[in-house]
């Protein structure tokens, strides 16, 4: 388990990370969500030791991280980077060898990953000749080629088409299933919602929410329900204990506690057939918006963004 405790970091006199604590469990795909400049990249760079924290600790299974331990991490940096003129397979082989694999094993791993990520035909092309999407896959391969103990990926899905997202997702899920803690950041909330087991939401350098996706959904669930009937739902406005959010002919969205909702359903059934009735679970986007707007002075995120841009 990868654990951050009280990690803080400032650039100059601006605090970009403030007491950041969360965990990435073994075998879990953990999504790291936040707006631009919320501190995702800074956090990841600190985990990798590319940047140092001003306070706080990063530990794995309770032990502090040292260089040798970090060398077994897989990292996909925010800014994509591989040698532009080096052939893809050679490049991955080189990276695996830098991590201690012998030449033959490194070559096998490289070709294997290239095949898994659907780049087999491109294995002997220089990276600069690959399309952007393929470069992105190559970058994922670079983070995985040495069979890392921990995976930290900064926006691994940006710029990928849906097919590629699926391929990369498959590869990451497989690693997670082998017990590797996987942390990936994204601002594509729909992708995160689909992929991850756990969620960490950061804004303005502070963790706003963290936990399993389902827990978060439950915690932020409002008592909203949607009902669709064949007839008209206009009568709902007069029901006690019900707040109608949306109403259009036979479809209504309303807020009510569980008992009241059941009463509404019974009443609706009495008036005619009910096509559907379901509690509305908040989407990640909604949770995110709620979490951020609840506590966040709006301009803070923008400021840290400028700061990171300036670096």
């Amino acid at each position, binding site marked *: 388990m990868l654990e951050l405790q009280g990690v803080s970091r400032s650039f100059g006199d601006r605090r970009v990370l403030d007491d950041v604590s969360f965990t990435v469990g073994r075998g879990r795909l953990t999504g790291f969500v936040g707006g631009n400049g919320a501190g995702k990249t800074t956090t990841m760079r600190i985990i990798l030791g590319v940047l140092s924290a001003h306070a706080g600790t990063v530990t794995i299974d309770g032990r502090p991280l040292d260089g040798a331990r970090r060398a077994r991490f897989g990292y996909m940096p925010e800014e994509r980077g591989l040698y532009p003129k080096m052939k893809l397979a050679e490049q991955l082989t080189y990276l695996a*060898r*830098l991590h201690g694999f012998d030449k033959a094993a490194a070559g096998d791993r490289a070709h294997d990953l290239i095949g898994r990520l659907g780049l087999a035909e491109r294995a002997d092309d220089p990276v600069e000749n690959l399309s952007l999407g393929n470069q992105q896959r190559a970058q994922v391969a670079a983070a995985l080629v040495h069979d890392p103990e921990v995976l930290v990926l900064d926006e691994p899905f940006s710029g990928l088409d849906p097919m590629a997202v699926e391929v990369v997702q498959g590869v990451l899920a497989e690693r997670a299933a082998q017990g590797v803690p996987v942390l990936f950041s994204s601002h594509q909330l729909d992708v995160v919602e689909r992929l991850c087991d756990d969620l960490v939401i950061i804004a303005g350098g502070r963790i706003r929410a963290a936990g399993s996706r389902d827990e978060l959904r439950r915690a932020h669930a409002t008592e909203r329900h949607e009902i669709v009937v064949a007839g008209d739902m206009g009568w709902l406005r007069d029901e006690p204990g019900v707040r109608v959010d949306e109403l259009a002919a036979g479809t209504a969205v309303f807020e009510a506690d569980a008992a009241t909702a059941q009463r509404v359903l019974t009443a609706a059934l009495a008036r005619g057939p009910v096509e559907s009735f379901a509690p509305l679970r908040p989407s990640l986007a909604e949770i995110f918006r709620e979490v951020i707007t609840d506590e966040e002075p709006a301009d803070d995120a923008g400021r840290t963004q400028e700061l990171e841009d300036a670096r």
Partner: protein
Amino acid sequence: MSTTSHPAPTAHRPQAPSLGRATLLVAEREITSQVRSKSFLISTAVLLLAILAGIVISAIVGQREPGETPVAVVSSVAGSIDGATGLDVRDVADRAAAEEAVRSGDVDAAVVPGGEPLGVAVIALDDAPDAVVQALTVAPEVELLDPAPAEGGLRYLITFAFGLVFMTSVIGAGSMIAQNTVTEKQSRIVEILLSAVPARALLAGKILGNSVLALGQTAAIAAVAVLGLVVTGQDDVLTLIGMPVAWFVVFFAVGFVLLAAIFAASASLVSRVEDTGTVLQPAIWLTMVPYFLVIFFNDNELVLRIMSFVPFTAPVGMPVRLFLNEAAWWEPVVALLVLVAATLAVIAVAARIYERSVLRMGGRVAVREALARSADD
């Protein structure tokens, strides 16, 4: 998607490579990626061809003068030019036949019986060839007590060659190191590399790889030059420069590392290839100074003496002095020790600069800042 071909993970995750091994891996990549690049192969081939052409042309130009002079000799005086070199001797019966041969242009001159004290005379059409006259001239033996091993042209040429070879190799390889450093930084692959190996291994591998390349290139130049000199029969030059060249190789290797470290550290200060020009200025000046100094002051013993002990100029200055026989036996040893000490010191500083600045993106990092910062960035 099948996972059967996937290598079993976790079980045999290898140990991270040692610093030395990581350095060798980095060096290997530097070498292979360059040896395979077209520009490197072409520029090396052009350089070698140019050197070969230079030697062959100098042989042709040099040999036209002392080439064998055809000369007719009347049999009765043939003994007078026995053992003379540079003559293509043709026997003729008498003076008339000799005159005939000169007039027809078959020979440049003829040696015929003549009056005292030599007993021979030279016949030529319009100008007596030096070779023939010299063959008949008695010269006293000359013994020099303090021979100058090389004067004039050769002295200048060798000095020039040492300076030029050093400067071009260092600037060529130095720019390559700088470009690779900035490319790694610009493409951010350095973040991935540094998550695997320490910055020191990256720097050391870069210097090592490019030093091997540059030395190899220089060795190829030397081999081609030696081959050319031997084939064209000018190998007597080699005995003159053998010892200084051996020293040159040693000084070259150490001096090269010194400058390579400066190039790498300088380049790590910027984040874009476009910015390397200005940041490399000092390193390039340091490389060009020895060249200009030996060219302009190759007959000024004091300047050469100072040069031969200053680390940046010693790789050129000391071999030149050795070649000119101006250095005592202990001087190259001391100069080499100074150079090695300076190189170690510079590498330590360069490694510090490199480690501190290679991950810092954006504007140019000031050297002072890179050195002064605590480990927090």
